[in-house]
């Protein structure tokens, strides 16, 4: 498993991307809320989130999707993400460790494109978010 790749020929079917541990800290989510939006209590305050019926504060879905994009760019800095589709299966909890893993599922050599399946799991190895991405790489 290479830490980084630069071009299409560096990629093989089944290649695993380096796992990425996103920053799910309350401090980071509050910063996201301040500058980007999604600063409501369910995202930035554990007690407020519990009052809404959640086990604690949750990561905004748009931030989870951003984690997936960052993971791809860390692995393939020359890649252009063309499409990224994200399914929110369950909340990603603030202040809890999560891991993002990815695997190459298809390579279209004619278009220099690679398809990747990406998953965010919690410490119990439960899937919280699933994504698929199509990226384009230099030949």
């Amino acid at each position: 498993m290479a830490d980084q790749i630069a071009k299409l020929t560096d990629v093989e079917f089944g290649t695993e991307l380096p796992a990425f541990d996103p920053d799910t800290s309350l401090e980071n989510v509050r910063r996201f809320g301040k500058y980007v939006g999604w600063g409501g209590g369910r995202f930035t305050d554990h007690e407020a989130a519990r009052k809404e019926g959640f086990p604690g504060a949750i990561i905004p879905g748009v931030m989870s999707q951003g984690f997936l994009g960052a993971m791809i760019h860390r692995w393939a800095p020359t890649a252009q993400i063309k499409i990224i589709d994200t399914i929110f299966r369950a909340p990603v909890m603030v202040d809890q460790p999560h891991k993002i893993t990815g695997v190459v599922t298809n390579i279209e050599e004619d278009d220099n494109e690679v398809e990747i399946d990406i998953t965010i799991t919690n410490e119990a190895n439960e899937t919280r978010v699933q994504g698929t991405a199509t990226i384009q790489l230099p030949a």
Partner: protein
Amino acid sequence: MDDDIQAIRDQFLNQEFDEIKLEIDGQRFAEYSKACGELDEKYTDPNHADFQAPPTFVATLVGRRNLPEDFPQLNGVGMDAGKAVEWIAPIRDKMTLTGKSHLHDIYTKTGRSGRMVFLVTRMELYSEDGTHVANADTRTVIRERPSG
């Protein structure tokens, strides 16, 4: 396809229901990038020669409404089921985009707890010169309450 869903599809699919101007703020997408863990300075440093928003950033751009004004009230609570983005061209600091929204898909899935209705709202984003730069989809699921 259930008759009621087909009727909604026939009436609402691909009909534009919202248009909004969106001013792109480079500091906002730089902070978004840093919070999400981006390391490439073209996403995080406003002084970088190729400074631009990461493709997923467009999911944070929202219109004035998520559904047409006359869309029927469905019997259930809506939840955010997912986001999809399609990158077409770079989005940069101080661009003014036009976001045009329509319902892109309506479909159902039936599980043990009953029927779920999925609504896919697509915002198409255009630059000032009319270039189509991105699509941002929001997938909402409505888990219907049992009737009776």
